[in-house]
């Protein structure tokens, strides 16, 4: 994503002894970075500030790793990551919103209007996270299915093309479109469930 994340990653890897944890971290960073960024942008933060918030969230997570590693009952890494990142993100977002207000009086009203209570940030984060998991799953599936299978799904579900038009466009019979789009969706759903079960 960017260098700072990479730096965090390197320092984390040096501390994480389990290679699966490293993979979990990478996957997590790829999903949660955009989540935090988008929630921040959605709440009226400047892009640079949003980037900073993302950095700080990851840094906070990285800095807490040792205490997690030392716990006997540490449980699943991903569950912990999600919890700690979510808390950090809520903190940062709330803090920054306040800071932005103090710094720039002219935008005070706008900032106030866009400011949310911590609980609202956290539900925004959760919603965005859920979406991102779907997108992540969709990206995975897209890589693993034939292009025309994906296209059948994409055209009909996301672009609102009718089954008939899609069949004509993809030069196949409509029956295939029904099944292809559902196969894709089914696999996305499975991946999402699997992801959620693992955490």
């Amino acid at each position, binding site marked *: *994503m*960017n*260098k*700072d994340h*990479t*730096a*965090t*990653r*390197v*320092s984390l*890897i*040096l*501390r994480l*002894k*389990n*290679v699966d944890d490293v993979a979990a971290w990478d996957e997590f960073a*790829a999903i949660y970075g955009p989540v935090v*960024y*988008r929630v921040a*942008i959605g709440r009226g933060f*400047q*892009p*640079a500030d*949003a*980037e900073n918030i993302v950095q700080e969230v990851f840094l906070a997570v990285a*800095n807490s*790793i*040792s*205490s997690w590693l030392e716990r006997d009952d540490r449980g699943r890494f991903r569950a912990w990551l999600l919890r700690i990142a979510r808390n950090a993100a809520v903190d940062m977002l709330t803090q920054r919103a306040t800071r932005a207000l103090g710094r720039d009086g002219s935008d005070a009203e706008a900032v106030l209007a866009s400011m949310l209570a911590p609980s609202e940030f956290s539900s925004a984060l959760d919603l965005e996270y*859920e*979406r*991102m998991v*779907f*997108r*992540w799953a*969709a*990206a995975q599936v*897209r*890589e693993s299915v034939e*292009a025309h299978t994906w296209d059948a799904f*994409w*055209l009909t*579900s*996301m*672009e609102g*093309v009718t*089954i008939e038009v899609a069949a004509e466009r993809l030069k196949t*019979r409509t*029956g*295939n479109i*029904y*099944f292809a*789009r*559902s*196969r894709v*969706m*089914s696999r*996305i*759903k499975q991946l*999402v469930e699997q992801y959620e079960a693992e955490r």
Partner: protein
Amino acid sequence: MIENRLRCNDALLQAMLCEELPTDASNDVLDHVESCQHCQQRVTELAASAADWKRMADAMSDLPEQHSDLSPSFSGLGQRPIHWTEAMARQLLSAPTHPEMLGRLGRYEIERLIGSGGMGVVFKAHDSELNRPVAIKLLAPYLASSGPARRRFSREARAAAAVVHQHVVPIHNVETERDAPFIVMQFVSGESLQDRIDRQGPLELCEILRIGMQVADGLSAAHQQGLVHRDIKPSNILLEEEVDRALISDFGLARAADDATLTRPGFHPGTPQYMSPEQAAGLSVDARSDLFSLGSTLYTMCTGRPPFRAENSLSVMRRIVDSEPVPVRDISPQIPAWLCTIVGKLMSKEKSERPQSAAELRDLLAACLSHVQQPAISPLPVVPWNSIDPFPKKIFLISKGSIDVISLISVFATFGLFLMLNPQDEQSGSKSTIVEEHEHNTVGLTWKSLLGKEPPSGYPADLPLLIQGLNNSRGEWLFAGKMLSDGNEVECEAKMQINGGFLNRVQQGKFPQWQISVAWPREKPTNTLVLNVMVLPEPETIKLMLIPQLAVEGNPVPSEHKMYGGSWDAEKSTVTWTPQSFRLPGTDNSSETASDDASKETNGAFRLVVKSDGELHLVGYQQGSFIHFSGQSVARVGEQYVEEQPALEKLPNGYKVFFAGRTEVYVVTSNGDVVIGPRVETIGCSDNMIYGKIIEYVPGHSDTPGYFWFDSTSGETSKGLELTKWRDDLKAKGIEEPRLVGPEEVGEQY
């Protein structure tokens, strides 16, 4: 209908979804489903609940502005470009006056959709007043409603219209007052370079040079007006039919170089595959960014595929920043070496290493083209930069020992020996002719290629597990041989230490990282060199870096060195080595500290800081994040070390390294072993021990401030301890208490 009803069967549908039915049965199910609405609905429901379908649609519906273009090979992390359809486009237009037309925009009759991208759609249209074909680029409606996007679009138009050049698509008209703003451009009859490559694969040498030259020419005109295109790629280069003319289109994201306000950082408007490293890193870009993208475009013309590919845009961007592409000639051996040199130069990670202007490149490519067309009349031109041939014509190595790993050593040693014996290549700043054909410049990193035979028993067969194999080989290996360099046969002997860097991790078999040092004894030919090889396997790439240790006490410090960075291509099982040349600033004088100028000197991917007290040299390697200095220690820092210059303090047994910001610092002993974290106030190290006082959190050690020790032999570390406990520990280990240097003695840096 009744018959159909009878055959409604969820189990069959489910089996069909799972692709478990034989063909004839599937055909029956398909026949049935096509005529049965109930089952059509059931298929959808069996796949996922209505709620999940909706969640999926929601998740995809509000994607931010995307990297999107016409090339289907790219896909982002859940970021799929919105595909425009004629139906969607038609909604934007008013009814056509002619039934064969798609619609109408003012005086323009829209004929057909010819492309779509992140910003909007492009139509072929007919200008009814001037009676000529035009291309119309229409801003996408979701962007038309956004103020910044509208402004960007109209600025794009103004910027592009200002560039009048034979190799830039001319802008006829700009309409920004309407609901959906649009630009009217000359219609170029032909295809895009992307289409051409898709259709016929790699291009002919003359074509590559001609198109490259023309694009450079067009860019040069834009650059002179302060415009950076920011999105040079094959799909933005149009090839006119029947005329040998390339035109740059879509200054879609072009903007005055100083207008940095609108595009937000972190948002990358270009297709990531052709981005420059600075774009990918979100840094500011200038004209040289376009030259990188043009380099990537030339690469694609040579090989038929883009240089950096990965499964999602983030990985693509990371590759652009971190790794070198597969050498052109591995894919297209017919491409001459000098063109590879040019492409490589354009694709230098560091922009100061690239040709500095499009005009310079244009002239060079023009001269190359004449050479190819008329070799008898036009000699191959001289390049205005120092070209480097990393591989000597001939080196042979004769191993004395019967050690299995000896060939492995020789693979690495080859580079080191060459470093020593080819000083004549190191005339910085001088002009040299483009290097002609040279030896095949890849080294396959397989057991077979390393050992010349299958791996010994007990060694893992899979390459990614090579790490383990090397780990098993830990110890000191002797290398002896002869090498031939420019006719001089030289006996040489080398000692190689495989340390299994980050020892304790490697032992666990979990942490795939190791380090090899190759040291030549001082009394041998010229300077003693130490090579460190760091290998960082990532899911798909392994990075190898060979770093010549810069200087050894008592030897003159050569003023020029080369460093080889290689990248491992798992697909092709090859390592690509890329030489980087760098000069040590301050080596010509013996001043106590490096001057500011010297410390800021950069070359290739490096930042150097040299305290030229004869011992201490620090090399930064931007992507691989090394700092490295002679003597006892190697320090390794987090990857964000790019801009900051580290400061060093010499301590009795080691070094203290400072970085601004939150960069973490690791100090590694000469054994290649670990590491101390940030804000360690005092550091010392001996052969086996690192010790110091923790002021703040130290990864892997403790959150507790206090004194700590780290025993690199056993891998044991202490927590932050009281001074008395710390002394007791050391005593128990039979270690003489080291002198700790306090902050008052080394001086506070941060």
